[in-house]
């Protein structure tokens, strides 16, 4: 029993460390990628090629004056940024970064928790993020954040649905909600090949849920100044920021497990590279994809975004489920 507790704590610490590193360097990656896409260099002064920039950013945000909007609802105002960080950290527990390792004759699974409803847990926990944004928009008692918060509530709830429906195709094929089972199912062939539509809709919904461009309406800075975090400064702002990046990492990781074969190497002769490294590479590739999208596309308008969700993505995901269902039935020898 004690052994399990120690192992779990060690795993948690490692996961948390990887996550924080990923988030910190995610911000640097964002700025570097943006820089190079836009024909400039990006951060360059803190350390070689700006490698210490996340540290400098962190210090700066930490020492900035913590301004509290005087007309705000204090309790909610302080609660919202904290809520922004919690959901992605909770999801960490079910991410299967690798299969299992053997240390001293004992086999230890690499995932923190081998839960058989991992996907439901993921959907449930991530939907808490909307509270952070809504409460943040509400608590400042200011008009622009309120508009941002309202937009976000509608957007989040709509795309949560698409996210869930995209995953159903995968679940039908594998027959399990367990992420580890899903990854094992992809040993020979990644699910992105069997479920390309689901993969695309999942990525769109994930980007929309993260409020990233081209769906960054809740924080559209050219319209709503800063959106829901307009009234936040210093570390409270940084927490919203951290939350966004952590969510990006988590969404990419889940997509990796669902569609890109998790810890398996893309071709057999590359499998000498350990699974966790493959997992991180794939996660980063999806993370990069999100950055790439952001710096390429303009922003959709609010009504167009909702229209796309209900009039286009919804039927597509439903058809995909129908198609998958037919396939599963026929494969099992018809009715």
């Amino acid at each position, binding site marked *: 029993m004690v052994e399990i507790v120690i192992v779990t704590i060690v795993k948690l610490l490692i996961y948390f460390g990887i996550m924080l590193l990923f988030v910190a360097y995610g911000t640097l990656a964002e700025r570097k990628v*943006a820089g190079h*896409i*836009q*024909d*400039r260099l990006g951060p360059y002064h803190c350390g070689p090629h700006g490698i210490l920039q996340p540290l400098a950013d962190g210090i700066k945000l930490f020492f900035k004056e913590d301004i509290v909007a005087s007309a705000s609802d204090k309790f909610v105002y302080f609660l919202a940024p904290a809520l922004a960080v919690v959901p992605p950290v909770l999801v960490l527990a079910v991410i299967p970064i690798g299969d299992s390792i053997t240390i001293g004759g004992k086999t230890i699974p690499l995932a923190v928790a081998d839960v058989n409803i991992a996907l439901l847990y993921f959907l449930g926990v991530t939907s808490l993020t909307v509270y952070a944004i809504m409460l943040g928009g509400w608590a400042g008692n200011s*008009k*622009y954040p309120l*508009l941002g918060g309202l937009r976000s509530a509608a957007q989040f709830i709509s795309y949560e649905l698409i996210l869930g429906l995209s995953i159903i195709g995968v679940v039908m094929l594998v027959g399990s909600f367990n992420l580890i089972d899903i990854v094992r199912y992809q040993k020979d062939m990644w699910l992105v090949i069997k479920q390309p539509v689901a993969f695309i809709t999942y990525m769109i919904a994930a980007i929309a849920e993260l409020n990233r*461009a*081209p769906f*960054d*309406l809740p924080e*559209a*800075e*050219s*319209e*709503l*100044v800063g959106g829901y975090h307009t009234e936040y400064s210093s570390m409270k702002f940084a927490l919203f920021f951290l939350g966004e990046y952590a969510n990006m990492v988590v969404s990419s990781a889940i997509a990796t497990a669902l569609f890109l074969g998790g810890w398996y190497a893309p071709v057999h002769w590359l499998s000498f590279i350990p699974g966790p490294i493959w997992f991180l590479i794939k996660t980063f590739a999806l993370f990069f994809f999100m950055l790439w999208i952001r*710096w*390429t*596309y*303009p*922003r*959709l*308008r*609010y*009504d*167009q975004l909702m229209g796309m969700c209900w009039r286009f993505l919804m039927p597509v995901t439903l058809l995909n489920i129908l198609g998958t269902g037919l396939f599963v039935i026929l494969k099992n020898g018809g009715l």
Partner: protein
Amino acid sequence: MAVKEEQQFKELMAKGTSLGKVDEDIMRETIRTQDYWINMGPQHPSTHGVLRLILSLQGERIVDTEVVIGYLHRGTEKLAEARTYHQIIPLTDRLDYLASPAMNFGYVLAVEKLMEIEVPERAEYIRVMMAELARISSHLLWLATHALDIGAMTVFLYCFREREMVLDLFEMATGGRLITSYYRIGGVAHDLPDGFLDKVKEFCEIFPKRVQDYDDLLYANRIWLSRTVNVAKISAEKGLALGLSGPSIRGSGVNWDLRRANPYSVYDKLDFEVAVFDGCDVYARYLVRRKEMLESCKIVKQCAEYLEKTSGPVMAKVPKVLKPPVGEVYMATEAPKGELAYYIVSDGSQRPYRLKIRTPSFANLIALPEMVKGHLVADVIAAIGSIDIVLGEVDR
């Protein structure tokens, strides 16, 4: 009917609600909805300066827009009355500070028309070339900020890269990057420096390729189209009635470009097309400016070719102390933002009795409330971008 309703209401009051006894005054007041208004600007990232809009909203839909201006008012017209004709040139720079040569151009043409000064042809070509470079630079800044407002951040930096090239050219020729004060009454301050024309030609080579870059990101981009097509429409009649001019009216299918319609300087000797599109929407105005940049590039090239082959004076013989005859003059030119006109009343002294400036941004801004009525907040941003205002010009 009313009696019956009154009775029902009394019964309801007597019964009370689930919240217990309710004050009758509160119950009498039927639930009202109220327009929500927000204040956009003067400190807002996409009002392009210090424009303030008071938007009445229903949800996110615009019911009414009130434009508040005056945050950048410097009294240019009044200041001009206390300055000699030469001294007014730097004031005109500060109207549309994004295209100062074009601002100088209109003013010096007006004074020359008043005094009937014959300007050397070389000077005219230099002026046209600089004015067209200014148009390119102004349109580049417009595209950059317009795209940024709609969320395409990369276009912003691409455009600034090329605008930098134009500003470098200005710096080389005049010493100033934004406010150049290069034009003089009767010509230009001095001839172009050595090597300038080569740089101009190099720019003309590169520029069309760079426009291709912007097209790759925007021209047929589905999101860009959905944000601009059929947004902030204004018909040709309505636009003309509101005094819309320049690219903003040419986007509504009105073929009116003073460079062609009422040629001044040497524009009648140059080969270029007037960009006209009849979509009446933000996208049409985008297409107009996009094409104008390419056409301006063609004009610049022609001017550079002419200037390479010729030499001569760049300044007419103009007295040191200017005393135009008593009278008045109105000179309209095609500035990057639209029709720019100077109206000068001279009383025969060294200073103008009155200088009235008709600036395009001011007139175009009036069309904004008309354009955005019934649209969403996000469309206001697109609409402001599409009429391309600069507040230095609006407030003067």
